[in-house]
Structures are given as C-alpha cells and as structure tokens.
C-alpha cells in the first residue's frame, strides 16, 4: 500500500514541529532572581539616547544609567549632583559649571567637560533630529545649528558658540538672553554627558550606542536592550555619587497595562508604575497600603479659541469655567486618580498657589449663567477631543455639566488622533473648545506659562496673546534670583485668571502599586520611580 508509508511520515513531522515549538531560546543572564534585585514596569522606550527621549519610559531607564548635573529636591529646588558648583554672572547670562572630580563612565572613561559639550552639540544640531533639541535654544549659537529659516538650507556649523571648555572639569555656558531658571533646566535628561565611546566620529553617534548606552550613573546595563522584553541594569562598583540601595534593577517592558497589573499581583513584578483605571476597583483590596498615589506634573485643560468672535469675551470663558463641577469629574470619571485643578501650574511646582484661579474655577451655575448671558456666549458649543486617549467619558461629562449649568447645547466632537486635532487648531479651523493637556519639561512655573500661553509659545493653541503677560514671563526669566522670578511669574498667572485662555480642569496623579518584596517606593512629578530610595523590604 503506497499510501501507507506516506501517511506514516506525518507523525514524525508533527513530532519535530512540536519539539521545535518547545525548544527554548538560549538562556540570557537573569539578574532578577538575585538577592537585592527588583523589577519595575515600563513600556518600550522609543530610544535610550538621552537627547532623543521625551517619553517617561526612556527617561525612567536613563535615571538609572546617568547621573545628572542637577537634581531636584522634595521642595522642587535644584541642587548639584554631578556638578560641584553652578554659578552665574550678575545677569544670569553666563553660567559656569564645575564638575565633581573622580566621576567615570561605566566603561572607565573619566567624565570631563568635553563629554557635556559634545553631547549638547549633538542634541542641538538639527540634522540629528533629536526631539529635545529645543532645550538648548537658549544657548548662544543655537540658531547656527538650525536650517536657515529663509532658504531651508541645512546648517554647516556643528558647535554652539555659547559652549566653552575652561578646563577638564569646568565648562562655561553663555545664553542668548538671561535666564535665571537655567540651573533647573539642566536637570533634564538631554543635559546628560555622553562618553567618547558613544561617538564614531566628530559629532556622529555610534549606531549601536542606543542598544547599550554607557552612562555616568549608578547603574550600568548587563547586556543589550532586549526590545519589548526588558532592560537589565546592575550597580556600578565604587560609584562616586549617591549610591542606590538595590543592586540590580530589571526594567520589564509591557504593552498592556492589564498584563502589567496581573504580573504585579501574582508576584512577577515588584513595582507597577501605572495601575489601569479598570483595575482600581479591586486594587485597594489586592494591594492594601501598597497602592499609592503621588502628584504628577500632568495638567488637563480645555482650550478656548480666543481668536473666535464667540469666545473673545473673557466673561464667556470664565462662565464656562464656572459651569464645570471639577470635583464631580474627579470622583466619578477618574475615581479619584486625578485632582481638580484650580490653578495653571501643577501643585508641586515652586511658586504654586492653591486656587490661584479663585471664583472663576468654583462651580457656580447661577453666576456662570449670568456671566454667560452678559458676555453674549453662543447658544451652541462643541468640545473636540481625540479618541486615541480614552477621553470620551470625561468630555461627555463636561458637556453635560455645561448643558445643565448654562442651559445651552453642548456636543462632543471626536477626532481620531491628537495630531489631527493639533493640525486643525494650527490651521485655526472651527473646532470649538478643545481638550488639551500639558506636562512640564522641568519644574519651573515657566515650563507651564511659557509654552502654553505666551504669544510665541510652542503649544499655544488657543491663540491667546497678551503683551503684558508675555513681558511678565520674560521678566521672570531674566530676574536676578529664583524668588524674584517666581514673583513675576505669579503676576503673569494672575492675568490668566482674568483672561482665562484655557480652562483648568484636572491635575494628574501617579497611581502605582508594589509587591511586598519592596519598600520605600516613591514616584516623582515626571512619573519616574526614585531609584535611589527604593529598597528591598527587610
């Protein structure tokens, strides 16, 4: 029977297939099981090159690999870390940074002023397309590294004239205009130094550097970045700066928040940095005191197109703000994971005043209705939002509140993505009110006021322009001391109270949880776990 022999072949083939399926890939060195080792959840970072990182996951990993010049303390004041001293001239235009001696990169290279200058020039040079390039735009000579605004020709200069090496451990930074907050700005990841090993030529980054970055921080990578899986770091021996308490950290990469949470409660993960809203119901019983909340810098607001006639009267904008019951939205929609916002800067920022918005952010339907009629607000409004962020219930609730408070019609308008929404706004299309959000770059009031409300602000979508406001923000930048700057910025914020170019709604919070194995878990404003305080529970 010829068919029989062929039929027999199927069985071995199936067996081979099964064996192949069961065959596991080579064992990677796993530090997770070692004592004094912990795992923390992140999402897949976009990149690990410091100047390319704007999202939290990449920033979080970099906090373990690099040691910043400046740290930010609990009261959000800057203090020196890798820098020995940071001084500036009278006008805060020329800054001198002295580095601490004895620091090395994890490959043994000593950290010198050149490492900073090279890294910053790389970040600022436009053809390198680094997303944080704009952080350096205050430094003199930044414009030379950008394409010519008129001819669009690529730049030929690769080095900013404002960066000068004084000696191996000292560098001098000259700014275009005085800026008292520059020390705080330097706490950001794009100001990390890069070792010589990172570059394959003058200003050309090594292609593989992204896979296994070498930093000056308390941890170094053990092996390459395992994409979509994990990034493992281990303590650098004899680290000169603050030494963390744990020996190894595994940054576990997740795509799904639900999977992440399930791993936490079944003991495969030590710190879950973002508990999904749908798990919040069971989280308090699952985790008890190990479910924590801490402030984050996120700020949700509703942008009002001030350039449109319907909304040009500030009374209309104030009325809309008073028509919103923020507490109700925080409790009902966000289950207490967000806090009502009644200011324009996050509560954790130096200079924040509780309720700087005053009456205008208090829920008061009668007063709102009166103001709205006086200002001649439209009988029908739309709130646009992007559907890719899960904002529907929030916007619908907002609309219903406005409807019942003001007796007008309010509809929500869904736009597929944030980028489309932004495009419509830039083209000043009639989108009505818009859901927007902001998170700071560095903990300064300016990081909220400058980009969102000044006439030339990079994220000013409401088209708000007020010369007095602009000049107050600038005065703050150029103040002699940080305290003086805050005073100016607060005056600027007071203008917002009257003009209400955007309606503050919510401040974000980190909602995180951890396993019984770890202790002293704290998360900062930028949604990063503090790797220096975290400890294994005794």
């Amino acid at each position: 029977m010829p068919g029989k022999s062929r039929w027999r072949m199927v069985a071995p083939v199936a067996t081979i297939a099964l064996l192949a399926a069961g065959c596991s890939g080579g064992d990677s060195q796993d530090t997770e099981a070692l004592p004094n080792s912990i795992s923390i959840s992140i999402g897949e970072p976009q990149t690990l090159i410091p100047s390319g990182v704007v999202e939290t996951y990449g920033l979080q990993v970099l906090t373990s690999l690099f040691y910043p010049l400046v740290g930010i303390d609990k009261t959000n004041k800057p203090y020196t870390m890798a820098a020995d001293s940071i001084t500036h001239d009278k006008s805060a235009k020329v800054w001198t940074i002295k580095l601490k001696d004895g620091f090395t990169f994890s490959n043994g290279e000593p950290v010198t002023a050149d490492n900073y200058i090279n890294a910053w020039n790389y970040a600022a040079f436009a053809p390198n397309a680094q997303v944080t390039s704009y952080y350096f735009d205050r430094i003199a000579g930044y414009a030379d590294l950008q394409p010519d605004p008129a001819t669009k020709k690529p730049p030929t200069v690769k080095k900013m004239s404002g960066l000068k090496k004084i000696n191996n451990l000292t560098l001098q930074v000259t700014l275009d205009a005085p800026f008292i907050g520059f020390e705080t700005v330097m706490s950001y990841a794009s100001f990390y130094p890069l070792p010589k090993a990172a570059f394959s030529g003058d200003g050309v980054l090594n292609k593989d550097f992204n896979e296994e970055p070498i930093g000056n921080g308390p941890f170094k990578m053990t092996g390459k970045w395992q994409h979509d899986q994990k990034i493992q770091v281990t303590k650098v021996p004899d680290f000169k700066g603050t030494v963390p308490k744990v020996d190894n950290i595994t940054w576990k990469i997740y795509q799904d928040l639900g999977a992440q949470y399930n791993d936490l409660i079944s003991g495969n993960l030590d710190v879950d940095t973002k508990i999904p809203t749908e798990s919040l119901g069971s989280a308090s019983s699952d985790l008890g005191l190990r479910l924590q909340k801490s402030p984050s810098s996120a700020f949700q607001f509703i942008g009002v197109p001030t350039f449109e006639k319907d909304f040009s009267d500030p009374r209309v904008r104030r009325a809309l703000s008073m028509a919103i019951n923020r507490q109700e939205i925080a409790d009902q929609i966000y289950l207490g994971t967000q806090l009502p916002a009644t200011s324009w800067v996050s509560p954790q920022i130096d200079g924040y005043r509780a309720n700087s918005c005053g009456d205008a952010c208090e829920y008061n339907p009668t007063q709102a209705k009166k103001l709205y009629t006086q200002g001649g607000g439209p009988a029908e409004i739309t709130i646009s939002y992007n559907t890719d962020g899960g904002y529907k219930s929030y916007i619908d609730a907002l609309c219903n509140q406005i409807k019942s408070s003001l007796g007008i019609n309010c509809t929500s308008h869904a736009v597929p993505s944030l980028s489309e929404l932004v495009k419509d706004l830039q083209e000043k299309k009639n989108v009505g009110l818009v859901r927007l959000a902001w998170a700071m770059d560095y903990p300064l009031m300016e990081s909220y006021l400058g980009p969102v409300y000044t006439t030339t602000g990079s994220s000013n979508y409401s088209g708000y322009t007020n010369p007095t406001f602009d000049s107050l923000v600038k005065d703050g930048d150029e103040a002699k001391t940080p305290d003086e700057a805050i005073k100016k910025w607060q005056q600027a914020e007071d203008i917002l109270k009257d003009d209400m170019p955007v309606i503050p709604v919510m401040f974000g919070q980190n909602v995180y949880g951890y396993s019984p194995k770890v202790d002293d878990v704290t998360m900062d404003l930028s949604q990063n776990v503090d790797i220096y305080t975290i400890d294994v529970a005794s």
Partner: protein
Amino acid sequence: MTRYIVRRLLQMVLTFFGATFVVYALMFANQDDPYQVLAGDRVVSDSQRAALNAQYHLDKGFFTQYWYYVKGLLTGDFGTSLTGRRIGDMLAEAWPITIKLTLLAIVISAVVAIAAGVFSAVRRGGIFDHVTLVLTLVVLAMPIVVLAPVAQLIFGVKLGWFPVTVTRDANLYQLLLPALVLGTLVVATELRVTRSSVAENLRADYVRTARAKGLSTRRVVGVHVLRNSLIPVITLIGVDLGVLMSGAIVTEGVFNIPGVGFNLFRGIRTEDGPVVVGFVSVLVIVFLVVNLIVDLLYAVLDPRIRYE
C-alpha cells in the same frame, strides 16, 4: 510534483509584491502624521520635520515612497522603524515566538478537534455528542478579547497554574495557556467539520465493505474513515492560520508576548508604515507557504490526487 511546487513558488513572488503594495497603500492612506504621534503632546518643529523627512521620505508622494521601500526590499533591507530600529531585526526577534505559539495552538486544537470529532461522530446522538455541541457553541460565542483576559485572571492570577505573562524565550509550559486560548478560536469549527465529515464517511460503501471483510471497528474508523475525512479538516487548518494570526494580536497583547501580533498592533497605533508592511508581508508569505503545504498534504492523504 517539482514543477507544481516551482509554479506555486513563482506565483508567491507575485502575490508577495501585490500584498506589499496593497498594505503600503492602506498604511499610506491611514498615515496622518507619525512624527507627531511619536512626539506626543508637543508639536514637532519644522527643522526636526525636515531632518526626519530626509531619513524617512514621508514628505514624498506615494509612489516615490513605495519605490524607496521596494528598492530596500530587493536588497534584503526592510528599512527602519520610526523609532530607528532595523525592521529586519524586529522581524527576526518577533517571528520565532509567534511561530511557536501558533504551532502549539494548531497542534492542540487539531488533536482535540479530531479526537472529539471522531468520537462524537461514532457515538452520534450520545451524551458526549450533545455535550461537545453545547461546548463548541459556547466557545464560538466567546470572543477572544474576553476569553484571553479571563483565562489569564483565572488560571494565571487566581489559581497560579500558569505564568501570567510570557517572555521571548518561553518554554512549552509557559506558552500553554496562551496557546490554549488561541486554539479555542479554531477548535470549535474544526471539531464540527471533523464530526460531520466522519459521520458522512461512516455511511459510505467502502466502510460497509471493510466491515464485511471483518476488519475491527478501530481499524475501520482509525484508518479508512479518518483518512478520508481529514481532507476538509486539513484545508480548514490551513485557512485557520489567518484566524490564529489575527487572534495573536489580542493574545500576545494580553500575555505580553513580544511577537508578531504585538508588533503589528503597535505599528498600526503609531502609524509606523514600514513596520506594518514588513510584518504583514512576511505574514503573507507564511500564509502562502502553509497553504502550499496543505495542498501537498492532500496528495499524502488521498493517493488519487496527483500534482503535475
């Protein structure tokens, strides 16, 4: 036979380029502003846009972009993702785990479906037959978006029988739960098809002849009937591969398996055209190859079938 295979392979080349073109066009139509998606809430500046365009050519027209892509493809270069990773590397990392998962799901579902299908066909109208009917209806009615998280919660978190999430170098046991979940997608139809096919063949003349010759029931069912009943089931398994791949998008997300579905989902979300096209193209090849194998298996099962 060889000529047949060569002809089929040549057809595949055409299908492959057709598929990449269609997927590329779809991604192009869907693409809005991927740079902005990456940058989040902050607007991408003009100079960054110019620098990124120099690398990714997103400012060019559709045909120019597609030409760049095909040019790369012909030299074996799948291009780079918008996050700067080589897509060839991403494919090499993602495929093995997905192949393992899918193979396991196919084997599990085929074994369960054929065994249970034959049994219920032989005992038609019995308790087992009725129970499997109800069970298959339940499984068919349950979408995988529900099944996957529920299975993870019950068997992974509450009972602790299986690991909750799976890593890239997972072993058979770790993959079992996701494979079971994935297998439920296809097991019900495969079972019903096996049952009706076997039931029909049991009434065939050759079965009566075989019985009359005095062959044992085991031999009649296990060799004569089963072999003749398997052709529709094998066809189904080949087609089911597509179902399994789409199911993998959900399963891999829930169990955090960094495979093909996981990458596809992210690629679509971040409007990363080259990544999606790369993964789908390879998916197309796999689908074509598997169906070629299915066609060749026909000849193994039925000696009357010859390929010229």
